[in-house]
């Protein structure tokens, strides 16, 4: 059963024993969250490119303009800085804008508004002008998108103080986290994993699951051998890898879904890694200076004395996102996760003063 405390079923998990729910896609759950937010709070306004009449290119805003009118769900001119900049002004007047960037890479024209204003306006005015706005950004690859349609841009937002960075991996979380994000008095960059948009899960729009406050990770699968730390589009990969490891290797991998990259739920992650002693961070974003860098560094700092092996990272290569026909070579998959797990130095305990580094032989292969 999907509950607020984090046992909502990930894609591919066992069906619950609750009264039957209609299967629903993540896109539908997001749509419902927007609808409920618009209905609950007259200050919520949805706008962006094609979000009105069309209902968005992913249909996440489908029907909202019809139900709430063009003043509450508005097609804008084609200008991302303009969208974010006007959202700032609306937030200054006490509204709660929810804007859509059509694709990850098309949020870049608005980068200055995001970094120089949205993230700083509250701080600049000592709290007088909070920015209760949500920037929805479909992100990541795996959908055969041509160039500029598959970026994982979360590292940029994580490195910007003043932004919350949230990303759901399940249908239930999509609803719950988007509601919390819209309700938040701080700006949230809400990253929607494109390739999970159509993933179905049992979920009831009549009794949508709540989630805890933003900033809480969840253990999606308990385990004692090692911890997989992941989020968004890579959760299904990690769940599958954990199944495979249990089946083929007898390893019990614990899978932590971060749900929010900022705030970062250090407690949940650290508790898991201290228990298992080994960890792999898995994400689609490029590895170098990517989200996994912070996670690995932070976890290592907090868990150093518990680690049997260095925290490893499985990430996209350090390259521009590949064209559709080559993207499968780039995306972290079950094999790469299991390869990394295999490199967690199961055979030998660490020995102080050992002469050559265990990973030295991998040379540049370390990602």
């Amino acid at each position, binding site marked *: 059963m999907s509950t607020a405390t984090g046992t909502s079923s990930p894609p591919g998990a066992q069906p619950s024993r609750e009264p039957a729910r209609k299967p629903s896609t993540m896109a539908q759950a997001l749509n419902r969250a927007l609808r409920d937010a618009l209905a609950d709070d007259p200050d919520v306004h949805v706008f962006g490119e094609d979000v009105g009449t069309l209902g968005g290119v992913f249909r996440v805003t489908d029907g909202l303009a019809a139900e709430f009118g063009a003043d509450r769900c508005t097609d804008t001119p084609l200008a991302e*800085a303009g969208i974010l900049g006007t959202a*700032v002004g*609306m937030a200054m007047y006490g509204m709660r804008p929810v804007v859509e960037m059509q694709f990850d890479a098309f949020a870049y024209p608005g980068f200055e508004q995001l970094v120089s204003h949205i993230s700083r306006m509250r*701080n600049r*005015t000592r709290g*007088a002008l909070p920015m209760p706005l949500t920037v929805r950004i479909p992100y990541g690859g795996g959908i055969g998108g041509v160039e500029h349609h598959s970026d994982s841009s979360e590292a940029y937002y994580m490195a910007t103080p003043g932004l919350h960075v949230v990303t759901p991996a399940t249908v239930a979380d999509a609803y719950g986290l988007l509601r919390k994000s819209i309700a938040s008095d701080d700006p949230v960059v809400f990253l929607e994993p494109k390739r999970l948009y159509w993933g179905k899960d049992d979920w009831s729009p009549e009794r949508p699951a709540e989630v805890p406050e933003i900033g809480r990770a969840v253990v999606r699968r308990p385990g004692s051998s090692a911890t997989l730390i992941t989020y968004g589009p890579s959760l299904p990969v990690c769940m599958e890898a954990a199944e495979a490891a249990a089946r083929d290797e007898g390893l019990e991998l614990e899978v932590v879904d971060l749900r929010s990259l900022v705030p970062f739920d*250090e407690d949940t992650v650290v508790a898991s890694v201290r228990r298992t002693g080994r960890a792999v961070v898995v994400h689609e974003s490029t590895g170098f200076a990517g989200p996994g860098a912070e996670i690995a560094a932070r976890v290592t700092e907090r868990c150093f004395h518990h680690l049997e092996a260095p925290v490893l990272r499985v990430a996209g290569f350090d390259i521009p996102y590949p064209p559709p026909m080559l993207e499968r070579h780039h995306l972290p998959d079950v094999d790469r996760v299991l390869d990394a797990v295999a490199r967690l130095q199961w055979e030998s305990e660490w020995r102080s003063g050992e002469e050559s580094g265990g990973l030295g032989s991998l040379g540049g292969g370390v990602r």
Partner: protein
Amino acid sequence: MTVLEQSGAYHLAPPPAWRPRRDPAPLMPDGEPFRLLGTEAELEGALLRELYGQLVRGRRFNEQATALTKQGRLAVYPSSTGQEAAEVAAALALREQDWLFPSYRDTLAAVARGLDPVAVLSLLRGDWHSGYDPRSTRVAPLSTPLATQLPHAVGLAHAARLKGDDVVALAMVGDGGTSEGDFHEALNFAAVWQAPVVFLVQNNGFAISVPLAKQTAAPSLAHKAVGYGMPGRLVDGNDAAAMHHVLTDAVERARAGEGPCLVEAVTYRLEAHTNADDATRYREAAEVESWREHDPVALMERELRSRGLLDDDGVREAGEAAERMAGDLRERMHQEPELAPMDLFDHVFARRTPQLQGQAEQLRAELAAAEAEHTGTAGGSGSTGHRTDDQGSRK
């Protein structure tokens, strides 16, 4: 019918049935900047006198603020000396419920609107990024990244309209700022939404060192309005009466639901870009001198005198009032501002994250340790370790 439903925007129809579109003629600026001073126009004496008083105050304010940079009391000051007419008119054209969106150069507009000068100077003094409450004063923070405040003004005005509130936003930008993409996007959104916004471009001839001819090839900056479907107005920016007339007109037009407007004030920056700039590197003294003859304060004084509305006593009184304001400002700016280092952590988010909480504790401990060392007591609890004497004093 929604407030977004447009009149005026052109609908595409299939040729050969090309539909009549919005007529560009009424959007076009005049060939010459609009002027009132020195003309036969009927002008309200009380308004002229009020403008004069504000101009004198404004000039004195600019001088005082520049002096404060020399005394180390301001980190930097971008003076609007020479542009006081535009600054003052912008403030006076608004009603109480309206919003002003100033750029970093428009301290004076905020002060003329009635804000506490010390609060307005926070950014430039360096004690905080902004020193007043934008909600209660209806003045947005002075904006440093050029043109970025323009879409804010559009969004705010649009939000107010959606809520049915009677609010106009007036947004200020420089000639250089018109080259930024944000200028374009803001004007376009405003026109499509018919938002009640007035865009005021102060064309003061330069963007730091770059003269207008390197900034644009347009007939005038006001001509840019046509491409958005809003009227463009060209005004003598040193003629406070003309500025007040055109801006008031634009503001009331916006208030009446007739949409946004672009006003270009042709003026000149008499001082360097900021106190840190050396304007002799990029312009001739003769050019500056020629503009001094068109000084906005002097123009107004001449007008008032010629209309018999001002005599030497009046001039002296205005000067004395300005002097009192300057003295008061000087005195207050010479007091050290109260600094609250823990503020650094308190406004990043509504609530500190655990990480920020930890960092705040670290700084608090460091400050306590430094304090303890400074006062000669033994290292305070929470000392974070090694600390040499001269290093400790640096915190």
